[in-house]
């Protein structure tokens, strides 16, 4: 008896997954039906528009109506009787009605993929997400047909915690209107931060009618920003919910300009919600809709030092301090001590070495190829390290709080998590910035994404409103970011249409990083940096001390070999990317200066190669497309030449070329005057010339971008020098047989 009961129990346990799957599926279908009625059961006149108004005939598709609904609740009552934890219930509905005008649009709207469900391990019951989809098609004759999505969908993935489906939309043709909704319902533990919500009021297709509604339970604090002409939403309150809603007609299409930041150009609404999250700083203003973070809010919420006592931090500090102490001891013998400058430099460079360069014994993989070159330190953790070290040395410091320019103004910031921090040390005339380093940065390097942006300085030791003050991130000048190429060209002795080129490029500032990441070998610069910092031994000496060190060293050496092979490939592709011509062969390549030494910060590399295709033959003469040696220039497409949005460039910069072409014996050079260009205005310049010096033609060109930002009104000025650079590339040199 007992035995058979046990057997039954086992059988039941084994059967449980399929029972539970069937139950899940039943519940999914029931909920799907409810959602359908919720969305399509309520009349919404905007979604009754049957065809696009006049004026949209040339569009691929027209969005007749688009609706986004956002709902967040966090009450315990929703959890059911058995449950004792809070959870966040998040509901997002995306619905749109689209008129299909051509084949491209038909292709785009004829398939729909969605994440049917996910399950997460969490305290909350049923933590995870479900997605419900509805589709109907309206024929030009007025007939309407609804798809049975669940019957027509097929599985892409069917794991119990990750189900994905896709559906081919049946009976959809050009001229039809498709209306569909995607409803996401998500249950998440209350301690998981809520994702900020952001939407740009523009689309790939024109939108005739747009409506948005957010319903947020008054358990939450809402912080909201309306940017770049987006409507200012006035909250309404009803039944314990905050309601934010608006409607708009005729949303624009997204621009296709270059150098646009959507967050700085297009109408955007974003909000950030906070519930009762444990360990959160400051109090929650339940049920309130707050404006973007003010300086005082940022100051109030700011904290640092949470990582101070972690074992990894102690270990790192110990290593850095040990090298610094040695230096102090040496100096003490000479009755000297470390200057502030020496201290901050050692904190920066030694800290970087032990964080990013030295191998961690527990490291799982061997990463010493170009992937290593992309490593960088983490924001908050790094500030805690630097702050702790500065405190040890009694050096006062403060924090700079900032936002990348692409994210819009810090005045519209709604979420502390989107802000970046760096440490500032002021020592008399000198100011030092500690931004989290990458493998090649120098003390004071700040990424160009922040240059010229408005931020704040937080001085925790100051009193009252002096604690936080406005700050402008310093912006560089064109000369800080110089790229200079020296190109020596000779004609192949046997084939005058083959050019033998020796090219050396020097770059400084922001020009460096991309190329350092691709062209430098950790094997070489790692130990050079170590030596510069006065750390004894070598990278491999450290590895040798690990358990099974001797074998490991062999593996590392093997990995170095592979990295060197990749380096060669990177050098070859660098030539092609720079000159826009694939080199016929590369005969030599080398890194001349790594750019790591702060006293000699330029990155210099060179390569020798042969180029085909730039020399045309004209009877006994040759025409050299010498202008092409400065490589492809930014081309502005016809449709981009008129401009509405401000121009967010990368950084002020200079590209300089000196090209020396050896004139072969028996020939003379003509056409030098065509290389003279001189366009210079308030946004930048392109200046070039050519002259004969002995048996060489020397061509010089300089392209300068003066700023990282220009108002749209200056676009024509920019076009003037960009066009001049393009014209230069078309210029040719004639080598005439004498």
């Amino acid at each position: 008896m007992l035995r058979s009961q046990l057997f039954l129990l086992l059988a039941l346990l084994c059967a449980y997954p399929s029972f539970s799957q069937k139950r899940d599926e039943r519940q999914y279908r029931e909920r799907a039906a409810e959602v359908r009625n919720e969305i399509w059961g309520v009349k919404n006149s905007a979604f009754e528009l049957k065809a696009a108004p006049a004026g949209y005939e040339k569009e691929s598709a027209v969005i007749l109506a688009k609706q986004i609904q956002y709902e967040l609740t966090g009450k315990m009552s929703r959890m059911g009787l058995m449950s004792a934890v809070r959870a966040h219930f998040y509901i997002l509905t995306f619905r749109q009605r689209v008129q299909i005008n051509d084949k491209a649009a038909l292709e785009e709207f004829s398939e729909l993929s969605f994440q049917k469900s996910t399950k997460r391990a969490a305290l909350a019951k049923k933590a995870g997400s479900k997605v419900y989809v509805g589709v109907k098609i309206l024929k030009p004759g007025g007939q309407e047909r609804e798809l049975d999505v669940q019957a027509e969908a097929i599985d892409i993935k069917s794991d119990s915690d990750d189900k994905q489906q896709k559906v081919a939309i049946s009976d959809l043709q050009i001229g039809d209107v498709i209306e569909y909704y995607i409803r996401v319902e998500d249950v998440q533990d209350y301690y998981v931060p809520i994702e900020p919500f952001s939407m740009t009021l523009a689309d790939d297709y024109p939108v005739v009618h747009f409506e948005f509604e957010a319903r947020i339970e008054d358990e939450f604090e809402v912080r909201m920003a309306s940017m770049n002409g987006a409507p200012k939403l006035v909250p309404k309150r009803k039944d314990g919910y905050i309601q934010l809603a608006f409607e708009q007609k005729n949303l624009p299409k997204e621009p296709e300009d270059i150098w646009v930041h959507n967050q700085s150009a297009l109408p955007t609404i974003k909000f950030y919600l906070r519930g009762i999250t444990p360990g959160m700083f400051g109090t929650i203003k339940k049920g309130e809709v707050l404006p973007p973070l003010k300086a005082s809010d940022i100051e109030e919420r700011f904290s640092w030092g949470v990582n101070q006592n972690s074992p990894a931090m102690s270990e790192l500090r110990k290593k850095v301090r040990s090298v610094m102490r040695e230096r102090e001891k040496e100096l003490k013998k000479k009755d000297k001590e470390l200057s502030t400058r020496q201290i901050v430099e050692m904190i920066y460079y030694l800290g970087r070495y032990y964080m990013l360069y030295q191998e961690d014994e527990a490291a799982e993989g061997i990463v010493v190829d170009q992937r290593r070159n992309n490593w960088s330190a983490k924001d908050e953790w790094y500030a805690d390290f630097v702050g702790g070290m500065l405190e040890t040395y009694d050096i006062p410091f403060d924090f700079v709080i900032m936002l990348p320019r692409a994210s819009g103004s810090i005045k519209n910031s709604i979420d502390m998590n989107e802000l970046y921090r760096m440490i500032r040390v002021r020592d008399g005339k000198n100011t030092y910035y500690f931004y989290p380093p990458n493998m090649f940065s120098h003390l004071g390097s700040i990424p160009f994404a922040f240059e010229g942006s408005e931020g704040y300085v937080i001085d925790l030791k100051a009193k009252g409103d002096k604690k936080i003050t406005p700050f402008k991130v310093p912006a560089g000048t064109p000369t800080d970011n110089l790229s200079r190429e020296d190109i020596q060209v000779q004609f192949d002795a046997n084939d005058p249409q083959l050019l033998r080129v020796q090219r050396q490029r020097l770059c400084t500032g922001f020009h460096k990083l991309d190329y350092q990441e691709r062209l430098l070998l950790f094997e070489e610069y790692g130990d050079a940096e170590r030596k510069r910092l006065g750390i004894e031994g070598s990278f491999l000496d450290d590895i040798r001390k690990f358990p099974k060190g001797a074998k490991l060293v062999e593996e590392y050496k093997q990995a170095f070999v592979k990295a060197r092979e990749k380096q060669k490939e990177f050098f070859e592709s660098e030539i092609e990317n720079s000159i826009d011509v694939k080199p016929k062969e590369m005969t030599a390549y080398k890194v001349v200066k790594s750019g790591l030494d702060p006293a000699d910060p330029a990155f210099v590399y060179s390569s020798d190669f042969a180029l085909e295709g730039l020399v045309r033959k004209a009877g006994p003469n040759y025409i050299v497309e010498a202008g092409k040696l400065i490589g492809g220039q930014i081309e502005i497409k016809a449709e981009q030449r008129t401009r509405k949005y401000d121009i967010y460039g990368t950084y002020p910069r200079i590209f300089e070329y000196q090209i020396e072409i050896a004139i072969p014996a028996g020939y003379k050079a003509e056409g030098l005057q065509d290389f003279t260009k001189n366009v210079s205005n308030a946004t930048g310049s392109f200046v070039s010339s050519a002259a004969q010096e002995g048996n060489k033609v020397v061509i010089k060109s300089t392209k300068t971008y003066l700023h990282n930002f220009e108002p749209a009104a200056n676009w024509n000025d920019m076009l003037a020098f960009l066009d001049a650079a393009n014209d230069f590339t078309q210029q040719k040199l004639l080598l005439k047989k004498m």
Partner: protein
Amino acid sequence: MNDMHPHPSWITALFFFLLCTSINAQTPDELLAQFPKHNIVILKSEEEYVFEYDKSRAGVVVRGKLSDEFICTGVREDFTFAEPYDEETALESMDVYTNGSRNRGLQPKHEYLSIDDIFYSDARLAYLRMEFARKGATNRVVVEKTVRDPKYFVSVFFQEPVPIAAKTVRFVVPRWMKVELRELNFDGHGIQKKKSFDSDRDADVYEYTMKNLDHTEKENGAPGNTYFAPHIQVLCKSAEVGGKRHTFFATLADQYGWYRSLVNSIGNEPAPVREKALAITQGIADPEAKIKAVFYWVQDNIRYIAFEDGIMGFKPQKAQETMQKKYGDCKAMANLTKEMLRALGFDARLAWLGTNHIAYDYSTPSLGVDNHMICALLYNNRIYYLDATEEYAPFGYCAERIQGRQVIIEDGDKFLLERVPTAKAEDNQHIIRNVFQIAGTALKGNTEHLFKGESRTDLLQQISRVKTDKLTTALLAYLSDNNKYYQVENMTTSDLTNREGDLKIQYATTQQEAVTSFGNELYVGIDFYQEFRDAVIDLAERRHDLMFDFKKNLITETRIDIPAGYTVSSLPEDFEFTRPGFSFSLHFTKAADHILYRKEIKINDIFLKKADFPTWNEAIKGLSKRYLDQVILAK
């Protein structure tokens, strides 16, 4: 004999065994020297396929056991092993032995296999991520699979994505099983074959051994792997076992018979199909016009979506369902075309074929031979092939991918074996005619493009995928080759939805910077598009033949008026390079007041074989050089 202790000679034997295995196995350093570009290689691969009679299913099955021992020859790395399976091939087990010991912690994950362009397939992937903790670390994966029906056991390929140091593939074929093993693309791979008899199993054993097999690699424009990869094509013919005869595909009639049984059970409903066919052809009297109306309606209104779902990979969807859904795969579209035409009284039939992606033909009946279905129409004593998956294909035209391919056509219980007609390069002409004057440093004038055959269909297909509001921009970008110094104005085109007749584009051209002026001389670069310039094939890198998308015939005719006061002082030399598969010719002619330039490029054979690469490169180098030559006009 004392059983408590092993016999000394047994120890000696074991010692020698260990010694021998270590002598045979290559060291990581040796493997690295052999395959320097790889970090993970297969040290030893063993595959065995056994034909068995499965009593429970009363049928023949094929049991496969695959064992691949991977070794890390350089730097520690994680590596993913994946094995596909589907409804016809069951994955029985997948075990990993890490450094010799069974790794129970590593269990495969399963995913639907997503293949380019296929909307849904029943193929799944079992995969696992193996860790190689150090140089010399090994992982041996053992997979057991069962093919439930020998019909679906069509080939065994030898190569893997990583090189293989040593491999054995064994087929155990009981004498009751009739199967042909075709050895394909063995040349140059040093594959040894040994046949023996296993009396215990009353079976012939075919064993193929090979060493240092190169890895597989995807290359752009490469033909399908049946053309070049060493493999065995398995032709399962019949079996006499379990007291009865099992016939697979002993003859092509068997294969057709199976297809026939599937299409007989489609379940087409004639009434709604007829109603739609009548509606489409309403008011049309001419029979050929009716055929076109139906064929074009299917092209335009049924979206092609590929399904490979079990038996539905071979059996077409019902015609009425395709009509309702407005989508389907090639079989669905062929079936609907056929049913509609039959409803109108035409003799339309289903036809099976393999596209040029597959090297085989029907002389070796197998499910691996074909991958496509179209509709064959017997009309006016001719067979027309209607492939509605080819958008913008005119009636009577066949795409390159099906040209010259063998095709089986329904004929009741019998079948017709035919061949799809082939086109010539001239049928796909793209002609460019320019009439230019010199204006400063520009060439100005008028240009006309004519597209015929596949070059027309190809362009129409591309145009149809562009958003209407971007069409002009896209066309200009295409015509100017994205070069802002080639300016197009006053563009007119023929109807861009018309699949019949030539596609014509005309415009006023300004080709900036085409003329260089030095002193009394003008230098003119006469060819703008310079097709195939620098298209040299890297002989060191390229492993496979090259396959063009279709036969090409590119013609450019340019007339340049000589400006007053100038004479022609130098013309580039003519260029001719003719081989059976391709030819290039550039001609320059001087007349009293103008220069004529004529270029003709022909790709007659879409297969460019590796052996022909040096000749091709020689042609391309000559062509590229000549493109750089300038016309000189002097005052």
